[in-house]
């Protein structure tokens, strides 16, 4: 049990939801929620798509490249949005990161 250290998120980061953090449908309120200890966050479609893409295998760069083709949008913009998103969730200890 060594002391973990905070990781810097980059284009080469590989991320997935940490254990104890999960996405589910919330039929009563008609939304998709991300559940974590004492937290319930309502995600919009874009956030759900990002979370679902964090498969623990692909880098953020690879995911951004795929989204760029699929949505015909500039990859750099997508990548910088994703890095900000992953960084924020990582600070909340909701993700497991490799990089």
């Amino acid at each position: 049990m060594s002391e973990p250290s905070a990781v810097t998120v980059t284009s080469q980061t590989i991320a997935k939801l940490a254990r104890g953090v999960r996405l589910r449908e919330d039929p009563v309120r008609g939304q998709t929620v991300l559940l974590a200890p004492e937290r319930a966050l309502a995600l919009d479609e874009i956030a759900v798509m990002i979370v679902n893409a964090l498969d623990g295998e692909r880098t953020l760069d690879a995911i951004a490249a795929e989204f760029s083709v699929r949505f015909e949008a500039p990859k750099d913009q997508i990548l910088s949005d994703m890095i900000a998103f992953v960084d924020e969730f990582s600070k909340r200890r909701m993700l497991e990161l490799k990089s």
Partner: protein
Amino acid sequence: MNEHVSIARTSEWNGGRVRIPAPIALLAELTHRCPLACPYCSNPLELDGVKSELTTEEWISVFQQAAALGVLHLHLSGGEPAARRDLVELTIAAAKAGLYTNLITSGIGLTEKRIAELSDAGLDHLQLSIQGSTPALADKVGGYKGGYARKIAVAEWTHAAGIPLTVNAVCHKQNMDQIGDMLDLAVTLDARRIEIATVQFHGWAERNRKALMPTKEQVLRTNTFVDEARKRLEGIIVIDYVPADHHSTYPKACMGGWGRTGINVTPSGKVLPCHAAESIPSLNFQTIRDMSLEDIWYDSDAFNAYRGDSWMPDLCRSCDRKAIDMGGCRCQAMALAGDASATDPVCIRSPMRQLLVEQADADSRAEPPEFVYRGRSIEAD
């Protein structure tokens, strides 16, 4: 944090008229039995005996009703929930209902095998209480010799099983100056989160005010410490902090507002808007043996008693903070002002504020007397 994410909450405040939101969380007090005897125990003064406890089937029905009603988080608590022999079975049922399942435990009664079983059952998260940063202090506060060592073992087994861990540190006059050590311990135990909560002065804690009430200086030091630690440990541990509210300027939004987000079910099935609500004698509470959870949530007098603002005194109804703190804590108004509809005496605008501050200040400076320990309920399962 991000335009794509918001707090999952649906309630609306419509000029005094309230649309009742679906509840987000349910706290299931599976039993009042507990091996510890903490002097700030939040369970009511009158404990439910083992014979009145809901059966396994009844609890499972509560979980299923809660999920259908919109509850997302289930907290399995007590007393000590591990005192229930059916804890694994209950966890399986809760996970099957789709609930995010959190075990709130002292650790006593958990073994390595049982934690592995809970992990397989789908337990999402475990919250372990720590009473102090050293075995001597922790065991003194909990009134249970060997408790500290057991808790460290439980944290290690939890880590080995892969279940995410929160350390829950209740702080007060006698351990507040060691809060840094408790935080270091939580990091060493690889907790993802620590909840630092100042004792709430209800129920049993009222009897130990002189032993527990922190000084203003301690509170200010702790506030500064937490701000600094949050920056230093960002990405390593999440710090949730409940400051001492007798030293605050405004009341807390107790329970996120009465009947707005949470439900509490007692061991015998009584359904409460908060765990201390039975301290308000004018309210009658239904049990899940009499009524469905849905009918209690939407239609019972007790849940509707302090929703919206029509119950508020003019001082609160005209206040620009009413949508922030929801009028504060009703049980605190009952305990200190003798009227559950009064302005929360913690509020700077309450006529009782000065008296409250003076009492808190005097209790905080008193030489701490011996603890009056919570009596243990020792009936067997």
